């Protein structure tokens, strides 16, 4: 067989800049690599000196798609550092806000970025012509998720209302109950969109490679806003131990860090959460998992796409339940009260792409003196590389275009958010 040299510069339909390299000679792979070339923005460096009330606003700018999750994780870390407690109402509203983002991000990924692969199109634009009904349904799911963020956070991207201890303003009871109605009306549309993916799920490659899955886990709920660290290899660990879970290191071909734990690599994200917590999903989401034939532990990274749609369903159903609780208790006007103090705090939140950690140290005036963030996509980079190494040899019989497409689909299945993954502070070289 002749030489194959594939270089996908600036992989498309992912957030941020990354390259895929594949070199093969006489039927043998010489090199296959996932590289991250995004310009580092160095958040953990320039957040030093910021006053605590600005920190979540600065840090949400790490990622537009996960800005609510970054803000919440940031607030949790600051609140842990200063021993701030939040009310039950604040926690419930924050959970709804996080669901909104999970929904927005998942449907954007599966509906706009992955669907074109299944129909062998270059983007969602030609699908507007060929599959207008499907596109409009996907837009409906996307729109509702964004309207939810608008209502809870004041804006779709980069939340305004989330602050240390609570909210600068909250929606009214009337607005919340109207949102509740729209959520329950959207479930039939979710069913139709899920059915569409189910009809085409055979287009996702049947590929498995055993690995470790890491995510938040909880005894009481499908952990997104809170929980302890769970691993399919090693059980549970406290959030404060995050540095010994996500062992980060740097490679010269990537401006994003790589990470490992019990094995050479691990995976985070919707599939990891599903593998750890599937039995805690809402009933409708569990029913869809069954239809997709997805049960834990699934070792097929392409199933991350399916897990995302299952989670969308869960987020809709769980948001309805959360809003019911808030309305039953009656919405209260709350003003957070706390004292600024020195200390260090770690926060962890599940964002659409996986587990996220923020870790801050503050001085007694409330100024940030040190920050560290561990981003989901960084935790996946090594796993992506090992998957590529396992997948590539099985593809060599195919035409170059098909090889390239399969490699791209693999990376895309991880929904890598590369703009997020290039921010870090102290790096240890081993």
């Amino acid at each position, binding site marked *: 067989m002749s030489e194959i040299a594939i270089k996908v510069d600036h992989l498309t339909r992912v957030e941020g800049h990354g390259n895929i390299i594949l070199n093969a000679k006489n039927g043998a792979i010489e090199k296959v690599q996932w590289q991250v070339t995004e310009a580092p923005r160095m*958040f953990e*460096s320039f957040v030093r000196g910021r*006053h605590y009330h600005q920190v979540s606003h600065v840090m949400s700018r790490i990622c537009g798609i996960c800005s609510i999750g970054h803000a919440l994780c940031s607030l949790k870390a600051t609140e842990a550092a200063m021993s701030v407690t939040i009310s039950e109402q604040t926690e419930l509203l924050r959970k709804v806000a996080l669901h909104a983002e999970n929904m927005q991000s998942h449907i954007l990924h599966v509906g706009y970025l992955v669907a074109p692969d299944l129909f062998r199109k270059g983007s969602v634009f030609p699908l507007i012509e060929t599959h207008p009904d499907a596109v409009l349904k996907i837009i409906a799911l996307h729109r509702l998720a964004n309207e939810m963020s608008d209502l809870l956070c004041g804006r779709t991207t980069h939340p305004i209302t989330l602050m240390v201890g609570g909210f600068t303003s909250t929606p009214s009871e009337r607005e919340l109950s109207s949102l509740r109605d729209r959520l329950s009306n959207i479930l039939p549309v979710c069913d139709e969109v899920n059915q569409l993916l189910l009809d085409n799920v055979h287009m996702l490659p049947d590929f498995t490679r055993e690995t470790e899955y890491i995510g938040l886990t909880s005894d009481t709920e499908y952990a997104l806003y809170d929980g302890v660290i769970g691993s399919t290899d090693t059980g549970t660990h406290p959030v404060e131990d995050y540095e010994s879970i996500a062992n980060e290191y740097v490679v010269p071909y990537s*401006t994003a860090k790589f990470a490992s734990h019990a094995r050479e690599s691990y995976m985070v994200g919707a599939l990891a959460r599903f593998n750890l917590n599937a039995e805690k999903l809402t009933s409708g989401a569990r029913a869809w998992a069954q239809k997709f034939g997805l049960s834990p532990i699934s070792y097929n990274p392409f199933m991350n796409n399916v897990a995302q749609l299952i989670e969308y369903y869960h987020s809709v159903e769980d948001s309805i339940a959360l809003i019911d609780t808030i309305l039953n208790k009656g919405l209260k006007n709350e003003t957070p009260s706390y004292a600024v103090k020195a200390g260090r705090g770690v926060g962890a939140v599940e964002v659409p792409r996986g587990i996220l950690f923020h870790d801050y140290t503050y001085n007694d005036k409330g100024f940030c003196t040190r920050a560290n963030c561990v981003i989901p996509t960084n935790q996946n980079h090594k796993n992506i590389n090992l998957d590529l190494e396992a997948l590539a040899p099985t593809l060599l019989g195919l035409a170059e275009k098909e090889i390239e497409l399969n490699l791209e689909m693999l990376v895309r299945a991880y929904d890598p958010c590369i703009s997020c993954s290039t921010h870090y502070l102290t790096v240890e070289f081993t």
Partner: protein
Amino acid sequence: MKKQKPRVAFFDFASCEGCQLQIANLEEAVIDVTKLVDIVSFREVMKEHSDDYDIAVVEGSIMRPMDEERLKKIRENAKILVALGACACTGCVQRMVNQWPVEESITTVYNKDEALKDNPYFANFETKALDEVVPVDAYVPGCPIDRDEFCKVLVALLLGKKSPVPDYPVCVECKKKENVCLFELGKVCMGPVARAGCGAICPTHGAECEACRGYVTHPEEDAQTDVLTKYGISAEQIMQRKSMFTYRYIEEKAKQEVEE
């Protein structure tokens, strides 16, 4: 013969991609946009790419020499170059990194690893806005941009009209909404100097304006200082705000003072 639609290409540099996301957030209206223009390149959402375009919409700040080269090529190809969002217009929050010498930041971030020396991926310099590298024809301010304002700017460009982005302060919009002024509540707000166009969305939700849209052309900074004295706000408190989204103006002022 059918008239050809103008060809639009989207590009991004160092950013959170939140401004490009607002294009997807136009929801059904994206379909209207595709009726007005042909989107020929948009790496975030499409595989196809073309170097033949009329309008380049560019998100992100310039932080490395290799990015500067790429931006210059885009400028050569485009008839019109639009700066999308605060990262492109001012340098946004990552401009704060300019407070430290480049070497210090690099050491903080990468430690002293020899393997990364002379590696172009890691060759950061200071953060720059687009117009510090190439001429920019139109600006869509904000972090993130207001998606309706983006459409208005696009339409104005297509019709050859002047920019619809206002040049009066956020306070004007805030007062129209009859909000209680945050200064009355003991908070510090950048509304008096920040450029309007967002509908004073932050104060309307009870949060301080942080001037993510940059300043108006002639910010009455001295007038603002009077307000601050009136409400007993310290110079340090205001400096905290000014150095967040608007560090560019601090740098420019410092440069001016050196020249004078």
